[in-house]
């Protein structure tokens, strides 16, 4: 190649213009150098442009006609009915906006920045709220429009303090940009500007400077219409108008941080990021958040090799450009002193720092000794690559099939394959355009927060009918047309009742076994029957209950009965408990199934069985980024199991209970921005994590440690960089066949939409015989016993506890009771009560009375506290609550 290039250089007649790589092949033609075309091609000319991340239009989304209109004299084709601001982009014309943000829904026309002149309409119109029509003639640069734009900027700046040097937004501020681009450059306003106290804390994470606010309403609209926490309002009138919470309390909500990104000026700033860096000091690195199954795409802001802030990176197919506060603020924990940044070895009772090669030697020796008696558990943040190498380490180096990425029992092969079928798997954009959505057994805002916003969007903007069927009251209840409550842990009976209702059978008995109202179940069935594109969202958490196997089979039957496979845009979406639960299942981190859910030659033990066998049949366990004491519902059992295990090798970033009490060797684990690898979203989208900062301290990559362990045991994985592992996955996992980092790109790719998807083994059967479920637990009338359920909070885990702005949100103990039960038992919110169960012992908890909790049920927050965990671990059905 280089010789050819030289030749083309010598034979060149004219001056060499970029005699570059592209021209190498044309070296034998008369003119070796092609002068690049100078004609401007608008990036917006593609009329059927899809939002980022979309590979096709969701089935339910109505098609739009293409119309043509004129803007500044140029003919432009654009989809009919979109707003002029967006339509103008198809012609490469930018119309300045402050308040317009399509993600927030219907435009409000509050800022008047987008005024344009439309032929035939005497007054100037706001381009953000005027839909484009065929034949429209629009001018954005006529003298009238320019005068209007100049004046609007002057008006907006009249009360703006212009303290740009101090303001955190300076350098990335739309107001600065628009003032330069469309403003007059001078102001005639000589009067004093309005003054407020500044800055005020709007919440522990957000500071508000009301002087800088231009009253565009974006934050208020987000709070009122997108996240629907209804806390932010515009207070007072006229020049005194300012943003605040309706009750004067702090704005605390799961998605509050998004208003920082939304604010077009420096009025809302992150208190954690405030003054830490200016836009020219930083670098942005795109990756994926791995703290929950939502796997939102994020941008890490990096300065001096440290993450300074996390922002949403819009991927319409995953997160719609939003990010929850956990994803946004938990980065503070990565720099905290609590993080483990060097290998440690237990000496006596204490963990002592060790050198890497020593720790590796000790761990490898322990693994080699225990050989096939080794078990392994993979945690939620584990990448597909780490999962793949863990599988290889266990099978090839140690000859042990006992590894699992799930908690609880084994997943039946046919159930797993039925639920993984591409035809029945819903994509996230499909949720948005489904006409009936049923949420079963999942509190989305805690388990996959970003999907909560998507469901709200489907209901609010696309008119989807929502049904919520959970034991504990859900934050989506307000949006639901049908809300059904069931007894905790009775999801199997509920789904069976729903199946009966769909089949037209009597639901009375099954409903009472589920502890649910038969009428509600019939309503949900009616909703699903009438729907063209039903969407079933269900929480994997239900599979971890004692009735889990039955629930999984019931879901399969539901999928078959609704005919989800036959309809494009209909399907089910499992909300995994672990962030990369789906990816780990599919690369084969399961005891009974191989890569791509293929039949495995070996049958290992599931998590539950491992917990029982540790210390007896199993002598060592590898914990890859997981603490089963905290992650599994039966933590106390794991505590005992790990105590019995002679060797516990933990990959962990934190001194969590398993690491602190039981680990014999600790390898420091990577956190989000240090990781490189791939994850699989619950809807099958393979996404890429990209390293943006260097490892802290002595931390090393998880895949490297696994490779080193294998090498010391005597197996060469043949990997030097993580991409070689990805290549091995592309070869070894049939449904991911041929996947590469290039193909995954910035927005990921759904494996269901690739040809390799047909490699998924077909299930032997997709419907199952169901047994009649046991009856719901009944407390004796007048007794102080209540049905007992547990729930998990978004605000839990080491990354939340160690992040300064999130730590106040962590609740140590919370027992939710209905006010009626509270009155009956004589307890009020904040009181301490004793929970007693004959089999499991007793513990104390702090009561929170909540109106929506069904009478007769009590819900306990899963937390780190041992006593609470012990009682929750036994999964008692009834628990006695005494003051």
């Amino acid at each position, binding site marked *: 190649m280089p010789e050819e290039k030289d030749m083309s250089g010598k034979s060149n007649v004219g001056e060499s213009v970029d005699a570059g790589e592209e021209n190498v092949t044309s070296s034998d033609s008369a003119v070796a150098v092609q002068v690049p075309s100078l004609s401007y091609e608008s990036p917006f000319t593609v009329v059927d442009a899809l939002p980022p991340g979309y590979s096709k239009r969701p089935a339910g989304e109505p098609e739009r006609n293409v119309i043509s209109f004129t803007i500044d004299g140029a003919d432009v084709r654009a989809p009919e009915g979109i707003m002029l601001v967006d339509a103008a982009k198809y012609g490469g014309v930018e119309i300045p906006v402050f308040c317009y943000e399509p993600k927030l829904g219907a435009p409000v026309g509050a800022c008047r920045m987008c005024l344009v002149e439309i032929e035939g309409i005497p007054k100037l119109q706001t381009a953000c709220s005027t839909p484009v029509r065929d034949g429209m003639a629009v001018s954005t640069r006529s003298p009238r429009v320019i005068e209007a734009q100049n004046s609007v900027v002057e008006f907006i700046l009249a009360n703006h303090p212009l*303290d*740009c*040097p*101090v303001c955190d937004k*300076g*350098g990335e501020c739309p107001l600065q940009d628009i003032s330069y681009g469309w403003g007059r450059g001078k102001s005639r306003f000589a009067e004093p500007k309005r003054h407020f106290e*500044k*800055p005020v804390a709007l919440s522990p994470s957000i500071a508000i400077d009301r002087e800088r606010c231009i009253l565009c309403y974006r934050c208020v609209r987000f709070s009122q219409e997108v996240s629907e926490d209804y806390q932010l309002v515009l207070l007072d009138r006229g020049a005194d108008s300012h943003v605040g919470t309706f009750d004067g309390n702090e704005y605390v909500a799961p998605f509050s941080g998004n208003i920082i990104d939304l604010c077009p000026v420096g009025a809302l700033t992150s208190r954690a990021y*405030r*003054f*830490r*860096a*200016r836009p*020219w*000091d930083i670098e942005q690195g795109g990756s994926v958040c791995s703290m929950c199954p939502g796997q939102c795409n994020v941008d890490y802001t990096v300065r001096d090799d440290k993450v300074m802030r996390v922002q949403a990176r819009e991927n319409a197919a995953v997160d719609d450009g939003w990010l929850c506060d956990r994803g946004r603020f938990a980065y503070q924990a990565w720099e905290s002193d609590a993080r483990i940044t060097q290998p440690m070895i237990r000496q006596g009772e204490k963990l002592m720092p060790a050198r890497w090669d020593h720790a590796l030697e000790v761990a490898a020796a322990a693994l080699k000794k225990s050989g096939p008696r080794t078990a392994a558990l993979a945690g939620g943040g584990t990448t597909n690559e780490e999962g793949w190498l863990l599988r290889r380490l266990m099978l090839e180096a140690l000859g042990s099939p006992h590894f699992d990425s799930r908690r609880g029992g084994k997943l039946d092969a046919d159930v797993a394959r039925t639920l993984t079928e591409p035809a029945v798997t819903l994509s996230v954009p499909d949720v948005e355009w489904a006409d009936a959505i049923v949420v079963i057994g999942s509190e989305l805002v805690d388990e996959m927060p970003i999907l909560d916003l998507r469901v709200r969007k489907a209901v609010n903007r696309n008119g989807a009918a929502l049904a919520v069927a959970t034991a504990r009251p859900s934050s989506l209840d307000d949006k639901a047309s049908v809300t059904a409550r069931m007894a905790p842990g009775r999801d199997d009976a509920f789904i069976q009742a729903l199946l009966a209702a769909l089949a037209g059978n009597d639901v009375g008995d099954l409903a009472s076994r589920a502890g649910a109202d038969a009428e509600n179940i019939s309503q949900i069935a009616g909703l699903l029957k009438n729907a063209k594109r039903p969407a079933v969202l269900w929480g994997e958490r239900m599979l971890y209950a004692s009735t889990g196997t039955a629930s999984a089979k019931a879901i399969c039957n539901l999928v078959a009965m609704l005919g989800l496979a036959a309809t494009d845009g209909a399907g089910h979406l499992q909300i995994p408990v672990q962030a990369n639960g789906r990816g780990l299942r599919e690369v084969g981190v399961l005891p009974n199934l191989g890569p791509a859910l293929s039949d495995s030659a070996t049958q290992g033990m599931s998590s539950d069985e491992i917990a029982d066998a540790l210390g007896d049949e199993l002598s060592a366990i590898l914990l890859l980024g997981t603490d089963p004491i905290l992650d599994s519902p039966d933590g106390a059992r794991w505590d005992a199991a790990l105590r019995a295990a002679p060797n516990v090798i933990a990959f962990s970033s934190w001194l969590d209970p398993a690491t602190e009490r039981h680990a014999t060797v600790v390898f420091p684990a990577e956190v989000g921005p240090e990781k490189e690898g791939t994850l699989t979203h619950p809807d099958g989208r393979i996404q890429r994590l990209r390293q943006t900062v260097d490892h802290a301290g002595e931390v090393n990559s998880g895949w490297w440690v696994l490779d080193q362990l294998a090498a010391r045991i005597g197996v060469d994985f043949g990997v030097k960089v993580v991409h070689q592992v990805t290549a091995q996955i592309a070869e070894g996992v049939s449904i991911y066949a041929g996947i590469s980092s290039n193909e995954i790109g910035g927005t990921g790719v759904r494996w269901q939409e690739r040809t390799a998807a047909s490699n998924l083994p077909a299930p032997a059967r997709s419907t199952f015989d169901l047994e009649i479920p046991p009856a719901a637990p009944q407390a004796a009338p007048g007794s102080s016993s209540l049905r007992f359920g547990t729930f998990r909070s978004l605000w839990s885990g080491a990354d939340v506890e160690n992040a300064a702005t999130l730590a106040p949100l962590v609740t140590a103990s919370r027992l939710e009771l209905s006010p009626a039960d509270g009155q009956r038992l004589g307890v009020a919110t904040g009181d301490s009560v004793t929970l007693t169960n004959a089999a499991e012992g007793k513990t104390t908890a702090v009561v929170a009375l909540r109106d929506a909790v069904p009478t007769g049920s009590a819900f306990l927050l899963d937390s780190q506290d041992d006593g609470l965990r012990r009682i929750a671990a036994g999964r008692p059905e009834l628990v006695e609550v005494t003051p």
Partner: protein
Amino acid sequence: MSVELPKPTVYDPGDDVVEVVRGPDPGGAAGFYRAFGETLRGLKTTLGRLVEGPVTIQYPEEKTPVYPRFRGRHKLHKFEDSDLEKCVGCSLCAAACPADCIRVVATDNDPNDPTSAGERYAAVYEINMARCIFCGYCEVACPFDAITLGHDYELADYNRSDLIFTKEMLLAEPVERTPLRREGE
């Protein structure tokens, strides 16, 4: 004066003999002038300077005065009345710097014990003098007149790291080692 030619022995050149006319012999006033006249003319200028006294500046004992707008070592300023730093750590100087030699890390200002007059202040303010080209763009960019370029040009050091000037060094009243050129000088 004619030259005594040796008598021709074989060949008589006859009329071909050319008489060479020579200049004066060395010696005498004219000869002296011819040899040293121009040198003396030059020496006149040289010796003429002698009475003016020496113009060599005995650096480093003596220093060249600089013009008031000479751009030398930077200074950070405080308000004279409140003793607060003028710099709010906005980092605009770092943005303007073509040599990328300024590093600013800002942080929140404690309202009860303020460091600067604004909401923020520069916790770290460093200028790498080894890299600075003394263009003065930082001074132009500064919205608070917090940084100016002083007159000191004696920045040599034995160690590169010593050439990174910290905020304390820049804030400290520099020992003015450079004389300023007077008005009209």
